[in-house]
């Protein structure tokens, strides 16, 4: 072996150690400086949000204008702070008409409204998105038709922010804009339906149902939204559709009826009951299953026979729905189900036994969502 460390090598070792020490100090220093900077930014951000909220709550025009100017002169971070405050004040009762007008005016006076509008017309996805997001709040009044085009934005986040903004606007115009987005099919349908399923959209939804040339797919989506809204104004339309030819539309219409039954007038309830009874004989299992959801809300003795027969339905969901409906109707329903559990139809018996076992283990299992 031949190994030796020269003086030059020893010097090199020393130099390298010095390099490592210097590098370590530099990196640690960078981390410390970065953390201090981030801590300060976080404090500034929290303070900014407090100032915005205080100004809006105080109603002081000067203060509101000042914070709007601060947001204008800031950047993305300040606008993000603004969105945070908007989220915290999302409750409709916080935004009185007087407060909304005052804050909107402060945005105009400070030039922030113009800036946000310019952001809608161009710029980065983040700035566009922030402007779209803020548009949904009462602090900045924007025509919903201006936001509708962003449901087709190239950035998915902005598209979803647009539908969220239209929902928050909660007006006839914004509902029309959402329905237009639904018809144009640039977004997954569920993303729009979940935004439309509210009482403020019902009129627009019903009007869209009557629109000539509407496709059955869109009509189904409109009915789904009506079902989620659960508004009795949809009952006449749903009753008409439930008697129609399209099975998919009939199914969605039955969902509307199931969700509105409790709030419907007695006359409407009779009509809904009749439609549900008819639907229990429909070919479509989902329709039969949904019809049961209606019937379980009707504690008439004559329904026991019908439900008992449905426990032997060919469809699993119908069997389950019928069994649960029987259990929900009290002791007589339970007795009927026990009779089925001892019957000759093995599928019906199995379903009945399981539901009875669930009920025995925890009688309120249906209320627990089970």
């Amino acid at each position: 072996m031949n190994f030796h460390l020269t003086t030059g090598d020893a010097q090199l070792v020393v130099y390298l150690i010095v390099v490592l020490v210097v590098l370590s100090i530099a990196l640690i220093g960078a981390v410390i400086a970065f953390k201090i900077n981030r801590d300060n930014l976080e404090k500034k951000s929290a303070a900014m949000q407090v100032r915005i909220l205080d100004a809006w709550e105080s109603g002081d025009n000067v203060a509101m204008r000042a914070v709007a100017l601060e947001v204008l002169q800031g950047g993305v971070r300040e606008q993000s702070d603004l969105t945070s405050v908007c989220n915290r004040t999302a409750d409709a009762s916080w935004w009185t008409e007087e407060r909304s007008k005052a804050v909107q005016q402060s945005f105009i006076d400070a030039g922030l409204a113009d800036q946000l509008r310019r952001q809608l017309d161009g710029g980065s996805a983040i700035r566009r998105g922030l402007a779209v997001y803020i548009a949904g709040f009462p602090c900045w009044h924007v025509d919903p038709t201006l936001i509708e085009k962003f449901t087709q934005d190239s950035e998915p986040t902005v598209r979803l922010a647009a539908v969220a903004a239209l929902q928050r606007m909660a007006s006839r115009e914004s509902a029309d804009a959402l329905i237009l987005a639904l018809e144009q099919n640039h977004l997954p349908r569920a993303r729009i339906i979940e935004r439309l399923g509210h009482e403020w959209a019902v009129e627009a939804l019903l009007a869209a149902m009557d629109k000539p040339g509407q496709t059955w797919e869109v009509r189904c989506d409109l009915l789904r939204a009506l079902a989620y809204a659960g508004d009795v104004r949809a009952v006449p339309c749903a009753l008409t559709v439930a008697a129609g030819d399209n099975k998919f539309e009939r199914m969605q219409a039955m969902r509307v009826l199931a969700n509105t039954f409790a709030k419907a007038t007695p006359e409407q309830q009779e009509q809904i009951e009749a439609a549900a009874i008819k639907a229990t004989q429909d070919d479509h299992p989902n329709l039969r299953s949904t019809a049961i959801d209606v019937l379980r809300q009707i504690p008439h003795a004559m329904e026991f026979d019908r439900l008992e027969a449905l426990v032997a339905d060919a469809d699993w969901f119908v069997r389950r729905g019928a069994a649960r409906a029987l259990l929900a109707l009290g002791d007589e329903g339970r007795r009927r189900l026990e009779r089925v559990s001892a019957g000759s139809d093995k599928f019906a018996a199995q379903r009945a036994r399981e539901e009875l076992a669930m009920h025995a283990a925890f009688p309120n299992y249906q209320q627990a969502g089970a």
Partner: protein
Amino acid sequence: MMGTGVFDNNGLEWLQTLVIWYNRFLMYYLGVMLVLALGLVIVGWLAVNHYVRMRPLRDYRHVGTSELSMPVSIIVPGFNEALNIAESVRSLLATQFSQLEVIVVNDGSTDETLQVLKDAFKLVAIERTPRSGLPTAKVRQVYASPLDSRIVVIDKENGGKADALNAGINFSQYPLVSAIDADTMLDPGALARLVWEFQSHTDTVATGGIVRIANGSTVKDGRLVSIATPHRQFMANVQIVEYLRAFLGGRLGWSRLGMLMIISGAFGLFRRDVLVNAGGYSGETITEDAELVLRIRKYQADHDQPCRITFFPDPICWTEAPTTMKALVRQRDRWQRGLGETLIRHRGMLFRKKYGRIGWVALPYFWLFEFLEPLITVTGMIITPLAILFGFGSIPVYLLMLTFAFAYGYFISMVIILLEERAFRRYPNWVDLRRMTVVAFFENFGFRQWQALVRMRAIFRIRSSRKQWGEQKRVGFTQAKRAEELPA
């Protein structure tokens, strides 16, 4: 290296030449690897920046509460999990996401796992028809809970983790499926964040969240109530930094480049139909999660289907890191063997046009710089000093290389810590930052080298022995203190 030889013996000249060429190769290899790694970190940093800036626009709360959000079946495979399983299920049910079911698969446990579940949730035996036919060991019974319709328990004969997951998939009813380990805790909003990814990008077939270390944090009612690094636990702290480096420095970059090949088995979300079409989880590799993603990519490419697979740094899953040397060795050994088995199994994808960047970039990278790296590194660690000892090598060059490697490793770790601070700030306290920077320094003196040895040994142990469940002994989050154990 390019040093002066002092041996006159011709018989050793070939050895000298070999060593010199090997050292040259080593230099270029390390250089290329470090450049690529730096590139991934840069891409990851840009991706995080973009994510942080867009974060205010993402309405996660709405995703969590909407009845129309894409529903998720969470599958929790369990083998002898009596200690944690009930708490784990409750924790999952408490997640901020309304449209879910939790399917616990009791994979032939020999302890009281099933009884614990029965007692905790008043389970009732039901008939449930599987919706797909992935082959599994025999399912003995399916149970539902009258306390919560979201709970389903499958009791089956032992078949291994992959088998249990496939049984869960068969009985799942929702279009999205998530496989979560029984010993992990989800952040309350984690699922909503992952689902958002599917709802905003409809071509997504799989997405994974970040796995973080819970050691040192405080747990209450199955949730993390405060996050901290553990005190005086070098091993746990070094794994915290390591995980951050792997996820924020590695996977984020690969995801941004559209070449993500691994979704952590502890926390991933998949489209159910794609899972089933690809054949579900495979028990033929020891790390079924890594192999699955590659098989999904292959299947989708073979059938000309979109295949967007992403990593999302915000949804967090917390897990317990091994704190004993023995457990850590087993874990790293398993990971390396699993990686090898996966790469070998899918070697047919290499350099095939059909598989695009995966075949031409990602797979070669993983072969060269992940799988074979420990072998090359350890060989270099042995040969180079020996060469110097025998007069072939140059001490200055060797020292320079060592210094550069250390400096680079330290630099990358610190950049990742900065990235964590920039985007997530899960460790806001100075003491945690101090611990992480200290371990980032000292891990270069022994830990990394030791890990390279473990991984190198694993290369030669591929297929020699295989256990189907993780070998880590469950201690019920003792490393994460329970709130009630803290002094008042």
